[in-house]
């Protein structure tokens, strides 16, 4: 594509500016994609990762562990639902802790479970599940194997014999953007009592449930909801997606992606329209000396692909180091799917946007070379 390349070589500034603009836009789109994913995961990762296929909140909990409380009568009702397999209690609280006897305090969300298959993370990236009191699995954001964690009492002092050791690590297992620990039930109860001695009985925040054989999780959730009006049962995935705020985050980012996504084809399309108009004299000349219009259109499309491809490369190159970073408590990751999908979308939109220019090229009449009206 001789003509396409030569023109770009001789007009480095304008093509360079266009490629850098597109590159920055690609960077912003990919970065925000990563932020959206990282943000949502850091809110509900723990819900997605915990092992219970069905989570039952109280309706008043508004689909959050921190708001939900299961009273004993409700627990009884849930247990006796038809088709119920196993149940386990799940408790959740956010506490002030010290890690490794650091002088600085930090936050930790602690999730307690009675049955490791109904509440502990279903996959560990390192270590093992707790085997006894004083052990925990920690989210990889915030904890490392071997860390010791102490819950602080209301007087701000760690309570002596309540050290918890992190013996396992799970990825993407945070709750509410807080480092999270998964502990057996007794450890959870004592953490609650340590932090608030005024507390009465410690009730579970939710019930983890597994269906009996022959029934799937969604059906069980439906039955629980039908038989107990105070229960709000959801499959694991639904619980994650319907956590308040998740939908809002997705919607907000949707609009952002739409706007940014529109800028790319608009800038590309209008750029190529302007330069096509500006070089219409040359295009007319080429048609007159025997270049087929198809050739000229292909040349145009080739430039579009180069420009968007160049912008994609620049954007992805800038995004790669960024995707390894951690923004506060939010871990970013390099999302290959997002990169591929956006590359496809932007290339397609870019080519589409050049259709107006292509039509202009096709409309050129070689006779205008002779009339000297090869310009506009």
């Amino acid at each position, binding site marked *: 594509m*001789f003509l396409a390349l*030569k023109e770009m070589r001789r007009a480095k500034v304008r093509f360079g500016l266009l490629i850098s603009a597109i590159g920055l836009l690609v960077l912003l789109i990919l970065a925000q994609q990563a932020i959206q994913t990282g943000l949502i995961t850091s809110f509900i990762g723990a819900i997605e990762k915990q092992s219970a296929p069905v989570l039952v909140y109280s309706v008043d909990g508004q689909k959050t562990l921190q708001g939900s409380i299961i009273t004993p009568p409700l627990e009884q009702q849930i247990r006796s639902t038809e088709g119920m397999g196993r149940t386990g209690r799940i408790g959740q609280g956010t506490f002030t802790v010290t890690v490794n006897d650091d002088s600085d305090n930090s936050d930790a969300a602690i999730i307690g479970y009675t049955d490791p298959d109904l509440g502990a993370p279903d996959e560990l990236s390192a270590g093992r599940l707790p085997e006894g009191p004083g052990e925990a699995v920690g989210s990889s954001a915030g904890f490392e194997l071997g860390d010791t964690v102490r819950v602080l009492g209301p007087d701000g002092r760690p309570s002596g014999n309540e050290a918890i050791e992190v013996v396992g690590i799970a990825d993407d297992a945070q709750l509410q953007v807080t480092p999270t620990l998964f502990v057996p039930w007794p450890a959870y109860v004592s953490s609650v009592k340590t932090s608030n001695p005024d507390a009465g009985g410690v009730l579970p925040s939710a019930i983890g449930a597994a269906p009996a054989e022959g029934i799937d999780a969604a059906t069980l959730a439906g039955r629980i909801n039908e038989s107990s009006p105070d229960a709000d049962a959801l499959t694991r995935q639904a619980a994650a997606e319907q956590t308040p705020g998740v939908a809002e985050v997705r919607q907000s980012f949707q609009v952002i992606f739409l706007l940014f996504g529109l800028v790319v084809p608009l800038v590309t399309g209008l750029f190529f329209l302007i330069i096509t108009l500006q070089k219409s004299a*040359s295009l007319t000349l*080429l048609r*007159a*000396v*025997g*270049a*087929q219009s198809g050739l000229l259109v292909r040349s145009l499309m080739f430039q579009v692909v180069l420009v968007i491809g160049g912008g994609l490369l620049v954007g992805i190159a800038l995004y790669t180091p960024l995707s390894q970073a951690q923004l506060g408590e939010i871990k970013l990751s390099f999302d290959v799917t997002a990169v591929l999908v956006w590359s496809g979308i932007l290339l397609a939109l870019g080519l589409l946007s050049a259709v107006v220019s292509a039509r202009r090229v096709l409309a050129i009449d070689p006779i205008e*070379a002779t009339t000297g009206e090869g310009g506009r």
Partner: protein
Amino acid sequence: MSETQTEEENDEVSRDREADPTPALEMEAVRKVYEVADEQVVALDHADLTLGSDEIVALVGPSGSGKTTLCSIAGGILSPTEGRVVVGGNDISDYSPKQLTEFRRDSVGFVFQTVNLIPFLTARENLLVVDEIGSRDRKRANRRADQLLEELGLEDRAGNLPSQLSGGQKQRVAIGRSLMNEPALVLFDEPTSALDTKLGEQMVELIREEMKSRGTAAIIVTHDERITGYADRTVHITDGRLEA
């Protein structure tokens, strides 16, 4: 009529048209009619013109006389409304636009009055552009381009952009390009209008030399009577009609 062509022995590229009885151009009863608003405008009326294979014809007429239309039809840029057009043995009277485009690329050379060169290509690249849009025999094209540049005295300007060339140099590049595809016919549209008298004379001399050395036919459109001295024949055109 037929002259024996001198051949450069070691350079097959410059083996141009040999003594060739086929006329470069045959136009028979060619008419071109345009519909403007509701009227019919006859741009060319019953034109008969034949050019020998290496003949240079000056086409003289005032503006609006139809000379541009005649050239455009001869060059395969326009199709006639009626009549027969044969260029270098090819009957292009009923060619589709696509066929005409291909035909122009392979068989005709143009030197326009206004836009002649692609501004973002160097002199050399402007010559190569014909090959790029067509047959893609890169090596042959490169050799031919270099040879033409040398002949036209442009070797040291080969890498310059049109903005870095003088008017006369640009014109010479255009002539070089018009010869790249070894055309049967080259059309020159007012080649001297932007040049002063001296340069203009030099240019026409150069044109004659290049055409004759290759045995290529040419039509030179001009309103400058002095140019006619360099042509083999002069044809006058007024209001779309040719006079002998």
